[in-house]
C-alpha cells in the first residue's frame, strides 16, 4: 500500500512541475498572453452586437381593401409596435409583387374587401401575409411577431369565438425575442473552443519542432503524466476564457443567468476536456506547428457549422445530423443555452454529457499513445 501511495504522490509531484512549466511557457510568451484575453473579449462583443437578427425596423406594406374598424384597429397596433415600420400603402393586389421584389417591404399585409364584414358576422376572418422568402430568417421572425400582435388583437375582441392561437411559447425564454440572448450564451462554448483547441494543438507540436519533446520523453514522466500535465493547463485556460465570455454575457449584455453555476461549469469542464483531447491528438500527430495549425483550422470550421450555432441541427440532412454526434460543441451549446436561459438542471442536460465524455475518452488516450509512438 505504501509503495502505491508513494508512486501516486511521486506522479502528482511530477505532473505539478509539468503543469507549472506549461503555464509559465504560455504566460511568458507575450504574444500568447495577449491572444488569450483581448481577442476573446472583443470577439464576444462583436458577435454579440453584429450577429443579431433582432426585429428592428421591419418594413412592411399594407393593402387594405376592407377599410373597416377591425382592420384599422389591427393596423394601429402594428403602427404602435416599435418593430414594424410601414414602407408603403398599396392600392391594388398587383402592387404586392413589386413591393416585395424591389425590397421595399419585407412583408405585405393584405386585408380582403370582406374582412370586416366576415369578422363581424362569423367572428373569424383570414388575413393574408406575403413574406420575402429571400430573407427567410428575419421574415419568419417578423411573421412570428406579427402573429403575436394578431393574437393580442384577437384576445381584445369582445366577441371572440375561437381562442386566439397563442404563440408565446416561442418567446418563453427570451420574452423580447432578442436573438442576442440566443447567441451570446452559445459563444461561451464556441469562442473558448477555438482557442483551447489551438492552444492544445500547438503544445506538443511546438515541443517537437523545438526538440524539447525528446528531452521531455527521456525523463521518467509517463505518457499519462505528460497527458495530464499538458491537458490540465489547456483546460484551465479554456475555462478562464469561457468565464470571460460568461462575464460579458452577464454584465455587459445583461442577459440574466437562470441556472446553476455548478451545472454550467461541470458541463464546461467536460466540453473543454473533449476539445483539449482533440487538440492534443492533432498535436501529437503533427511534426511541427505549421501542420498542427492546418489540422486545427480544418477541424474548427466543421465543428462550428455542425454545432447548430448558425443553422439548427434539425434543418440538416440526416447524414449530417448523425455526424453532429461527433461534435462536442453541439452538445456544449445546447447545455450552456439551456442552463443559462432555462435554468436547466442535471436531469435536463444529462444526456449532453455523454457525447462530450465519449469524445474525451477516445481522444485523450489516443494522444497519450501518439506521444511515444509517433515515429519521427
Amino acid at each position, binding site marked *: 500500500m505504501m509503495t502505491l501511495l508513494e508512486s501516486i504522490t511521486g506522479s502528482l509531484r511530477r505532473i505539478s*512541475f509539468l503543469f507549472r*512549466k506549461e503555464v*509559465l*511557457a504560455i504566460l511568458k510568451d507575450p504574444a500568447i498572453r495577449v491572444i488569450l484575453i483581448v481577442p476573446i473579449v472583443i470577439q464576444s462583443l462583436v458577435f454579440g452586437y453584429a450577429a443579431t437578427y433582432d426585429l428592428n425596423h421591419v418594413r412592411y406594406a399594407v393593402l387594405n381593401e376592407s377599410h373597416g374598424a377591425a382592420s384599422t384597429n389591427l393596423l394601429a397596433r402594428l403602427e404602435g409596435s416599435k418593430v414594424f415600420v410601414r414602407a408603403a400603402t398599396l392600392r391594388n393586389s398587383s402592387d404586392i409583387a413589386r413591393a416585395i421584389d424591389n425590397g421595399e417591404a419585407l412583408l405585405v399585409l393584405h386585408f380582403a374587401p370582406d374582412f370586416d364584414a366576415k369578422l363581424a358576422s362569423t367572428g373569424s376572418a383570414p388575413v393574408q401575409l406575403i413574406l420575402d422568402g429571400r430573407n427567410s430568417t428575419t421574415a419568419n421572425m417578423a411573421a412570428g411577431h406579427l402573429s403575436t400582435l394578431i393574437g393580442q388583437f384577437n384576445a381584445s375582441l369582445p366577441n371572440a369565438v375561437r381562442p386566439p392561437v397563442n404563440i408565446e411559447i416561442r418567446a418563453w425564454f427570451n420574452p423580447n425575442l432578442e436573438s442576442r440572448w440566443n447567441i451570446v450564451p452559445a459563444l461561451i462554448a464556441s469562442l473558448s473552443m477555438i482557442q483551447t483547441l489551438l492552444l492544445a494543438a500547438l503544445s506538443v507540436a511546438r515541443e517537437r519542432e523545438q*526538440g524539447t519533446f*525528446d528531452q521531455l520523453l*527521456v525523463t521518467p514522466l509517463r505518457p499519462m503524466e505528460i497527458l495530464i500535465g499538458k491537458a490540465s493547463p489547456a483546460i484551465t485556460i479554456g475555462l478562464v476564457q469561457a468565464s470571460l465570455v460568461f462575464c460579458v454575457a452577464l454584465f455587459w449584455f445583461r442577459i440574466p443567468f437562470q441556472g446553476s453555476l455548478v451545472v454550467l461549469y461541470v458541463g464546461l469542464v467536460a466540453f473543454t476536456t473533449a476539445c483539449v483531447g482533440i487538440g492534443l491528438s492533432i498535436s501529437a500527430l503533427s511534426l511541427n506547428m505549421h501542420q498542427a495549425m492546418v489540422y486545427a483550422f480544418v477541424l474548427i470550421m466543421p465543428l462550428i457549422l455542425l454545432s447548430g450555432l448558425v443553422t439548427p441541427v434539425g434543418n440538416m440532412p440526416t447524414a449530417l445530423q448523425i455526424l453532429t454526434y461527433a461534435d462536442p460543441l453541439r452538445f456544449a451549446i445546447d447545455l450552456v443555452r439551456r442552463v443559462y436561459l432555462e435554468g436547466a438542471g442535471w436531469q435536463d442536460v444529462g444526456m449532453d454529457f455523454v457525447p462530450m465524455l465519449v469524445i474525451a475518452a477516445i481522444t485523450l488516450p489516443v494522444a497519450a499513445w501518439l506521444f511515444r509512438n509517433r*515515429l519521427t
Partner: protein
Amino acid sequence: MTTTALTVDAKDVVKRFKGAVGGPALNGITLSIPKGQLTALVGPDGAGKTTLIRLIAGLMKPDSGSLYTLGIDVAAKPQEVQDLISYMPQRFGLYEDLSVMENLNLYADLHGVPMDERRERFDRMLSMTDMAAFTNRLAGNLSGGMKQKLGLACTLVRSPRLLLLDEPTVGVDPLSRRELWRIVQQLVEEEGLPVIVSTAYMDEAERCKHVIVMTEGQVLAQGTPDELCRPAKGRCFVAYPREGELARTLQARLIDDKRHVLDAVPESGAVRFIQAGGTEPRDLEGILLGARCEATPSRLEDGVMTLLRERATQDGHEDAVETKSSSVQLDTKDSIELIKVRDLVRQFGSFTAVASTSFSVRRGEIFGLLGPNGAGKTTTFRMLCGLLPATSGFLEVAGFNLRTARAPARARIGYVSQKFALYGNLSVTENLTFFGGAYGLGRQELNAQVERALDEFQLREKKDERSGELPGGFKQRLAMATALIHRPEILFLDEPTSGIDPLARRAFWRRITTLAAEGTTIIVTTHFMEEAEYCDRIVIQDAGRLLAIGTPHEVRSQASGAANMNEAFLEIIKKARESRPTGATAVEA
C-alpha cells in the same frame, strides 16, 4: 582601380548590432585577400566570422571603414557584388519536399540561369557531388552530408567569381567532409575560383593557402598555415602515459595546469601538449610524473591555440573550466555492465537502420559511437535512451530492461540532444527546476541540486535570463547541467561538440573526463575523430552494421597503418563498403 587585384580589401571595418551587449561584432577589421586562392576564417564562436562573410557578400553594410569585394565598394553597390558571388550560409535553405533536381532548378530560376546553360552546369555539379543517381530523391530524405553537397551544388548553379562558405561542414561526418573539400579544391584548381570558408576544423584550414584567425571582432593573425604554426614552434610535445595510466588522465592533469600548459589533447594513445612561454622542464615534472616526453613539430592547430590562449590570458578572462583539478581520481571503472545490447535491430518499413548489433558498456566508461551520417548511430542512440522502441533484440540500461521498465531506466539517464532543446522562454533556473521536478527530486534536494548546477556550470550570473537568449557556450553548459540535475548514472551526449570552437571543446571534454572519473558512464556520438581518443572504447557503425569495437588503440590497429583516428575511420569504412557493395547505397537511404 587599384583594388581589382584583390578579392577582398577591408580597412577598419566596424559593425555593431543594435541592442547587442558587449563590444561590436567587428571591431576594426583590416585585411586583404589576394585573387584566386582558398582562404580560411577561423576563430572561436562569436569572433565575427559570419558577420564578416555577410558583409563581404553585401548582405549588410559596415558601420564605418571601407570594404571592397572584387573591387566593388560593397556598401555603395551591394547588388553588383551579389550578382558576382555565391554564398552558402550555415543553414542552407534546401526545400525538403522537393527533389534534388527540383531544388537545382529552383535555384537556377532564382539566379536567372538560362535554360540552355543549365543542362551542362547541372551535369557538372551532379557529377562533382556524386549525386547523379539521386536526382529524384527528396532533399528531406538525404543524409546530412548529402544535404550539404546539394546545398553547395545549388549555390553553384551559376558560375560565381567568388564563393563564400560559412561553416559548410558542421555536423558532417569525416567521409562527406572529405568529399566536400575535394569539390571545393577542384573548383579552386580547375576554375581558379577564389573561395573564402569559415571553419571550426583546423585540418580543413590547413588545406588553405591563407588563414585568418579572428577573435572578438578583430583579426588576431593571418598568413599561410606554415606561418601560423610559428607561435607554437618548439613548444609542442608528446607525452606518453605510464603503464596502466589512461591518456586522458594525463591530459586532464596537463590541461589543468594553465600556467605552464596552453593546450593538451589525447592523440593516438599519447598526449600532445603545448608549453606556455617560459616554462622549464622541471615545471612539468609534478604533472608528467615520469611520463616520457618528446618534442614534436607544431601544427596549425597548435599555432592557433597558442595565439588564442595567449590573447585570452592577456585579456584576463579565461574560459575557466571548473573542475576539481586536484582530485583527478583513479579510474573507478569496474566490471559492472550498465548497458547491455544484444542483437538489437531497428527497421523502418523495409529499411534496416540498425542491424543485429551487440555491445555492452561498463560503469564509468566513456563510450563513443562513430559513423558516417545515416549509419544508424542516432537510431542506436535513441533506442538506448528509450526514445525509440527496438524492432527486436535485448536492451538493458542501468539494470532495467527497456522493453518492460522504461520509466525506471529513464530516471537513471541524462540526455543532451544535438541541438539546444530546452525551453527557450523559461529562465535558466526555471529550466533546471522543471527538469529536476520531472526527475522526481524532493524539494530540498531539488534546491540543492539547482544551486550546485548554477555554480558548477557557471550559470549563476545568468540564472534569471531567458535560456533561449543565452550565448552559445552558456546554452551548452545549461544543457549539460539540466541533463545532470538528477545525478544520472549514464549520460547520453548526441554530437555535443558540433559547431563548437576548439577552446570550448577542450573545456567540454575536461568536464566529461571529470564526470567519468567520478563514475558516470558516458555515451557520446561525435564527428570529430580526434575526440574518440578521449573514449575508453568506441564503436564504428556504417549502414546499420557494427564494423569495429574496442579501445581507440585497438580500432586504430584494425586499420593497419592509420596514423590517427580520422584515417583509421576512413579506412575501416572504405574496407567495409568494398566488401559489401550494397552497403554503400544503403547508407545514402
